[in-house]
């Protein structure tokens, strides 16, 4: 699989307690991305956050640590990301209906063994 040099970075922000059909939402999104043969996906977990509700999440305070932030990063060509977005929308919409999705242009210098041309 190849990723063009001019690619797109899709970021999905959510909470670790968000769920889709009984399993963690981040897991469902990564598995769906893999199923659709996207170039890759990485899940990052953060120690502190707040979002639309202004509700604070923090790993330091036990009571605030039950929904810590998760960010999924997916880099692929714009066409592949655009094909994935409707699936993502279904999964995000089916959950708690919160979260943040962003897209930015990125330059891919290397994907796998060979430098990207």
């Amino acid at each position, binding site marked *: 699989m190849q990723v063009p040099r001019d690619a797109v970075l899709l970021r999905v922000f959510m909470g670790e307690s968000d769920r889709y059909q009984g399993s963690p939402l981040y897991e469902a999104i990564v598995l769906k991305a893999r199923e659709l043969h996207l170039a890759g996906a990485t899940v990052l977990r953060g120690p*502190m956050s707040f979002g639309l509700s202004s509700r604070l999440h923090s790993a*330091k*305070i*036990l*009571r*605030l640590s039950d929904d810590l932030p998760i960010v999924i990063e997916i880099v692929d060509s714009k066409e592949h990301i655009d094909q994935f977005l409707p699936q993502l929308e279904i999964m995000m919409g089916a959950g708690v209906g919160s979260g943040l999705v962003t897209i930015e242009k990125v330059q891919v210098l290397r994907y796998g063994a060979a430098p990207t041309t």
Partner: protein
Amino acid sequence: MAYVWVAIGGALGSAARYGMSGVIANLTGGVFPYGTLFVNVTGGILIGFLATISGPDSRFIIPTAARIFMMTGICGGYTTFSTFSLETVNLMREGDWMRAAANVIGSVVLCLIAVMAGHAGALFLNRVRGG
């Protein structure tokens, strides 16, 4: 039967702690464990009050079951030493020694004052009712 009272009281106390510490933590932010401090101090007032109001010198005759239910059950479930300890260690691990020290010293001092305040409140009530 005592275990049943402790279990029911503990369940109520823990749920109250979960709710109360959530409200306080959301109001005060995620930097200092005010929620835990608040439940421990208010729990201290409560147990100080209950100990004195149900003690041998009190005018009120409180059954042993009620005492176990309220003090061991509710107060035990409501207050938390383990969360206090965990959050203090969290602060220490981040090198935030000032807040860690403030939490230890502040919590211990405030909780002891809280128990004394509860005790004083119960003594006052005893006297007033005694006329």
